[in-house]
């Protein structure tokens, strides 16, 4: 079928079952937008290209599909960069399609020209600069394949405008064969056996579950394994939800910003099974002091992660779900009975109970401030952990990570690896678009909220009903805390004077809201926000001295 390449590109997206794209038009991608207007694909115009990338990322996480974002050349493309890097660090399948200046002008620094494939190469799984219009359908197929398989990640496609307008013969074939790209899914049988033996020999095993468990949808297998054998699970920031947080075997998040029970269990363990996690510095601290007594098993789909940060005794390359299934094949009733870690479970339960992260009591009768840990604990109660919570970055992120108790994988979305302020609101928009039947709650601080608050316009334009919980301490709380601890309380550049009245700001977008300054009002306010048919903003005023942990 003959058509111009821009139409072919949109048609290829339809073949990939794309129903929604997030983007921002400009001169260099105008032919694609022209074709998009005649497509069944819904285009959501954000207020900034970075918002489009984060929205596509949030959409990808809740739908388990590839998220698609678009931007024009030059600044449009560079504005996507933070979103692409965020998705790369968190292994989110994302396709970014950028317009480029005319191919014969490339390299001459013409208006809105930038080398976006060069710029994004360090944090893209792969990228393409289209050289010939007829390659477009094949490249789109390859890009979706690469983005969504193996360890997922972002792929950028840069399309010069003259090629968008060229006529090509559209043909779409499934299943690309890329000789340099063959991910391993099944674990090596010998290594699986070694893990089974290691579990049998161990008295104090701990599983560290990362985002890979969620990506591979392995929660059922993980839960079956740990329940059968009595193995506690610590999660990384990205792994929150890999097992329901209220589960008796869930220790919570480990690491420098994690909870005591998780860190204690890892420190005392004699076998640490890391699944779908890259053992990042925030999770492990100094690796030579991490899980010192433990034999380390590392299961990951990306061979390059194994041994990169953490010395490993039993490396296994493959998909978390498949490997857990392989492990379960060995775990029969006899094995379970013989190797159930009764003693260890009672120890870790004591640690958990010593400092619980649920049912936080409102401390004192403070009339000025809301305790964010209490507020998140109440949020867990009233939602039963069944909403999708999307956080910003800063204290709000760690409060939510440790005190909101999500019960399912994909119920807690956050920028884990890159720590991108401004991620939360647009990612929540993407999550709500991808999962309209679910309640989506954006958790923010007053700093991070102001990095993306223009996306309130996107919410209004597209009637996207998100509940926003804004913890306002009039500060960049986490940096302030750092200055308090490490820089002799030399507070500098951390107050946010000049912030707007957030309730009034929301109101300007027809979003109702209220300001709460007292713990006793928190529950009713949350009830009002959640039962309201539409978006809602709750501003909780927080003590600037409130600690992260």
């Amino acid at each position: 079928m003959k058509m111009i390449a821009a139409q072919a590109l949109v048609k290829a997206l339809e073949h990939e079952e794309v129903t929604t794209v997030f983007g921002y038009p400009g001169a260099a991608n105008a032919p694609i937008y022209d074709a998009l207007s005649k497509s069944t694909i819904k285009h959501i115009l954000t207020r900034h290209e970075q918002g489009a990338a984060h929205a596509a990322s949030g959409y990808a996480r809740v739908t388990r599909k590839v998220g698609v974002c678009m931007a024009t050349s030059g600044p449009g493309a560079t504005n996507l960069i933070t979103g692409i890097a965020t998705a790369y660090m968190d292994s989110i399948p994302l396709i970014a399609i950028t317009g480029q200046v005319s191919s014969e002008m490339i390299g001459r620094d013409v208006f809105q020209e930038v080398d976006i494939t060069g710029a994004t190469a360090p944090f893209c799984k792969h990228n393409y600069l289209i050289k010939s219009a007829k390659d477009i359908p094949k490249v789109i197929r390859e890009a979706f394949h690469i983005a969504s398989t193996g360890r997922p990640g972002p792929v950028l496609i840069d399309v010069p405008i003259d090629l968008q307008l060229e006529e090509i013969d559209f043909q779409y074939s499934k299943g690309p064969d890329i000789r340099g790209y063959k991910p391993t899914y099944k674990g090596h049988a010998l290594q699986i056996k070694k893990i089974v033996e290691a579990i049998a020999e161990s008295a104090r095993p701990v599983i560290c579950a990362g985002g890979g468990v969620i990506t591979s949808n392995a929660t059922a297998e993980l839960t079956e394994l740990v329940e059968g054998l009595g193995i506690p699970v610590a999660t990384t920031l990205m792994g929150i939800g890999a097992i329901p947080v209220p589960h008796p075997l869930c220790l919570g998040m480990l690491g420098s910003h994690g909870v005591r029970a998780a860190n204690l269990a890892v420190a005392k363990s004699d076998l640490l099974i890391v699944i779908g996690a890259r053992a990042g510095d925030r999770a492990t601290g100094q690796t030579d002091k991490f899980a010192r007594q433990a034999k380390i098993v590392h299961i990951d789909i990306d061979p390059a992660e194994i041994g990169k940060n953490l010395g490993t005794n039993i490396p296994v390359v493959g998909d978390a779900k498949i490997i857990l299934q392989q492990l379960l094949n060995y775990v029969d009733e006899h094995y379970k009975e013989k190797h159930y870690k009764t003693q260890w479970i009672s120890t870790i339960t004591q640690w958990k109970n010593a400092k619980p992260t649920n049912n936080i009591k409102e401390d004192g009768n403070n009339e000025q401030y809301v305790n964010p840990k209490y507020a998140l604990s109440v949020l867990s109660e009233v939602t039963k952990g069944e909403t999708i919570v999307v956080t910003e970055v800063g204290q709000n992120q760690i409060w939510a990570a440790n005190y909101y108790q999500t019960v399912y994988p994909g119920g807690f979305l956050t920028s884990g690896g890159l720590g991108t302020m401004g991620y939360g609101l647009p990612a929540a928009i993407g999550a709500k678009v991808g999962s309209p039947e679910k309640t989506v709650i954006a958790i923010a601080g007053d700093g991070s909220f102001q990095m993306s608050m223009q996306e309130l316009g996107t919410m209004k334009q597209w009637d996207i009903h998100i509940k926003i919980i804004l913890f306002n301490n009039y500060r960049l709380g986490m940096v302030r805390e750092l200055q308090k601890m490490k820089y002799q309380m030399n507070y500098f550049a951390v107050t946010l004077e000049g912030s707007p009245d957030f309730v009034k700001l929301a109101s300007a977008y027809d979003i109702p809201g209220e300001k709460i300054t007292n713990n006793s009002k928190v529950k009713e306010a949350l009830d009002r926000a959640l039962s309201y048919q539409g978006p809602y903003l709750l501003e909780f005023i927080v003590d600037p001295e409130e600690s992260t942990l």
Partner: protein
Amino acid sequence: MAKHTLSVLVENHAGVLSRVAGLFSRRGFNIDSLAVGVTEDPNVSRMTIVVDGDDYTVEQVTKQLNKLIDVIKIRQLNPSDSVARELALIKVTANSSTRPEIIQIVDIFRAKIVDVSKNTLTIEMTGVADKIAAFEEMLKQFGIKEMVRTGMIAIERGNQVIKIGSSEESE
């Protein structure tokens, strides 16, 4: 630190070299030399990369290179089981009194004179890095005006080949 030779088969596309080079700088790996050219298959280029580092570094380099979609296959070459060569062109100051001695050294090293002028000799030298270094050392006394080197290329001995699309390591 030890030197390791990696043979890397890559797609013969524009931009592949920059991806590979970028990876090295980004991950803090040290390249001693990198030489690239097309293979018997015009769609495939072969890079010979000499890496300076310990076993951990070489493993990381290999794994990270393998993540690049355009990298098809990587093999670390065993020095005792492969042939490695580098080409150097050296322009050395020469006049009528020093020329005979230089020519003598060139003969001893089995190098070749490829250009001559009133006050220079340009010499082509092929060999392993050590031999080139020794040759360079001998020429220094005459004054080296310019030197250009290709970087190491290497190939395995005997019947062994790096084949695409099979896990067989040799024929």
